């Protein structure tokens, strides 16, 4: 039991922080299952991050007054119960409410696990384990959610969290953390927290928009998208050995991390085709940047600052409000761009149909079927295969029609990829702002 305590507490930290983006790939399935709108389903993602960001600091105040193990056990239990509620939610309102409760329990659990891990491992190792678990959870979340959605259902994302969290409750109670009521000695670390918020907003572009591009724009399955975006956590794991090998100063490591994330997002903005392979290198840059910058910034925001739990609350608040900021900035931009992409996409489709090597009557039939399909899927990227499947073509015409379908799909992929470009570039801009926040000269204090 004692051996399992710290790993299970670290797993709880990873689970709570994975929940920040775990539903990204499940949003289309939730939209269909709960018969809701795109605007409402986005709140499944936003509500968790908003509530977690807002309650993190007030929750930290509770830890100054109560026993860490009881508070964290209660938080983990609330998180487990709310996860179960999410899995059985029958309406979008119930799901959003459950996600809010999940975030409140998650905030209690996150801060409690920090105190308990420090009690088990000591200050430095405990904080490092807590930060690493958080980075891994954040990076793995979208991929894990996509795989579970594809293999089972969107509810499976929440079901698997319940036993893990339930097991962590006795672990939390088993740690005999000594409650140390430390006076408020240090002010919040503004610079690392601002940089964390900006980087989290930038990472939203990478983790949220990339999966949307893969699933909605390029019509890849959630499992394929999940496997593709798993490059980010793998590259994040490679960041630590690289930093150990090159031994840069902390500020340089953080600045380089921000630069790599910005570079990776620019790479996603200038993809030369809709081949998954092209996303690998930009994602690797983002993953490396994430591994270098986020855990170092979190360390700077917390390490040797007392009370520790309060500063952890500030860093959690900064990260999750950063995610909300990213969603608030990027969602309208890519929605408008997706809408604007309809005209060039329709013109490209028209051009290809007019010049297609088909008999005139077949061209007219294709044009009619495509027109019906485009009209019925207003606001979404259309699935042209249905239009071609309904056609009654002469067998001799089928190869030309199949080639036309491939060419039209390629045009849609081009239009969708182009529609996401501005959002990725804005994400890169946010990462560069984080870089500026890190390297901007400090104000001299004159006595």
């Amino acid at each position: 039991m004692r051996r399992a305590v710290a790993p299970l507490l670290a797993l709880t930290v990873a689970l709570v922080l994975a929940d920040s983006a775990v539903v990204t790939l499940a949003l289309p399935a939730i939209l269909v299952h709960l018969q809701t709108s795109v605007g409402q389903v986005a709140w499944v993602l936003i509500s968790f991050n908003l509530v977690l960001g807002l309650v993190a600091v007030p929750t930290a105040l509770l830890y100054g007054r109560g026993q860490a193990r009881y508070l964290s056990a209660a938080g983990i239990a609330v998180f487990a119960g709310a996860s179960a509620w999410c899995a059985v939610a029958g309406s979008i309102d119930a799901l959003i409410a459950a996600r809010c409760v999940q975030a409140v329990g998650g905030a209690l659990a996150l801060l409690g696990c920090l105190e308990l891990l420090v009690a088990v491992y000591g200050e430095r190792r405990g904080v490092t384990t807590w930060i690493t678990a958080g980075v891994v959870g954040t990076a793995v979340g979208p991929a894990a959610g996509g795989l579970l959605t594809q293999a089972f259902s969107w509810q499976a994302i929440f079901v698997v969290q319940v036993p893990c969290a339930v097991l962590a409750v006795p672990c939390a109670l088993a740690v005999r953390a000594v409650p140390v009521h430390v006076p408020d000695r240090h002010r919040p670390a503004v610079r690392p927290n601002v940089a964390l918020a900006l980087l989290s907003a930038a990472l939203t572009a990478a983790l949220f928009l990339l999966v949307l591009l893969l699933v909605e724009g390029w019509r890849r399955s959630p499992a394929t998208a999940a496997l593709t975006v798993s490059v980010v956590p793998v590259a994040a794991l490679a960041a630590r050995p690289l930093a150990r090998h090159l031994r840069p100063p902390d500020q340089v490591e953080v600045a380089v991390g921000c630069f790599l994330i910005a570079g990776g997002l620019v790479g996603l903005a200038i993809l030369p085709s809709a081949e998954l392979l092209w996303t690998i290198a930009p994602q690797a840059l983002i993953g490396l940047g994430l591994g270098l910058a986020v855990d170092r910034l979190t360390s700077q925001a917390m390490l040797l600052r007392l009370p520790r739990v309060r500063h952890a609350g500030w860093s959690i608040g900064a990260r999750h409000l950063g995610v909300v900021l990213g969603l608030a900035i990027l969602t309208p931009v890519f929605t408008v761009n997706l809408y604007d992409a309809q005209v060039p996409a329709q013109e490209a489709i028209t051009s290809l149909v007019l010049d297609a090597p088909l008999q005139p009557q077949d061209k007219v039939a294709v044009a009619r079927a495509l027109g019906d399909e485009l009209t019925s899927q207003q606001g979404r990227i259309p699935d042209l295969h249905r239009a071609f499947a309904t056609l009654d073509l002469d067998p001799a015409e089928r190869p030309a029609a199949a080639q036309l379908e491939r060419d039209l799909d390629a045009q849609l992929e081009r239009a969708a990829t182009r529609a996401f470009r501005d959002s990725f570039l804005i994400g890169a801009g946010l990462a560069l702002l984080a870089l500026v926040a890190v390297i901007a000269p400090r104000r001299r204090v004159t006595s």
Partner: protein
Amino acid sequence: MNRGPSLLALPAVAVILVGSVLGVQLAAGGASYAPLHPADPCAVRDVTSRAAGIDGLTERLVLLGLDGAACRLHVSREALTLELARPGPRSDAEVAALRAGLLSAVQRMKADGTLPPASAFVDQALDSSDLNDLLKIAIRALPDSVVDAALPTDDVLTRTIDDLDLRALLANLDDQRGLDQQLEAAVTQAVQDSLAARLHDLL
């Protein structure tokens, strides 16, 4: 031996990595990966058709006519096609541009020698017509040179386009039967007028 912190190694690695990734993507066309850009409708375009006979001629005429109309309206051929496919009334400018575009298409095909002689369409036209069988046999017996001299293709097409009620035709795009009837009536009238004009010239 312990090494001290290296100030430049990690930034150098990062610059190389980012530079390489972005360089390769730009070299592979990342900056220009966008939907197909519509071609300039005023530029000369080669137009072909998989169909033979009247269908092939009609398709080539319509494609060239769309180019000409779009050029006159200062829009792309694709934008004009999408506009014409939408339900609703057509503006005078659109109808006039389409008629002028179709007439230009006839002249262009005549000039570049891609306008087939009328004799090439006689059999297909007679098959689908409701003329008396004896009359059909008589017309089929005529030498091609006589048919071509009596009915210059460009003259028939020009008369057809002039006679066509394009506004009504555009309003009936979804009604294939109505379209066929309207076209057949316009072509028949144009053939009669063309023949009358030839006779008038002879007399």
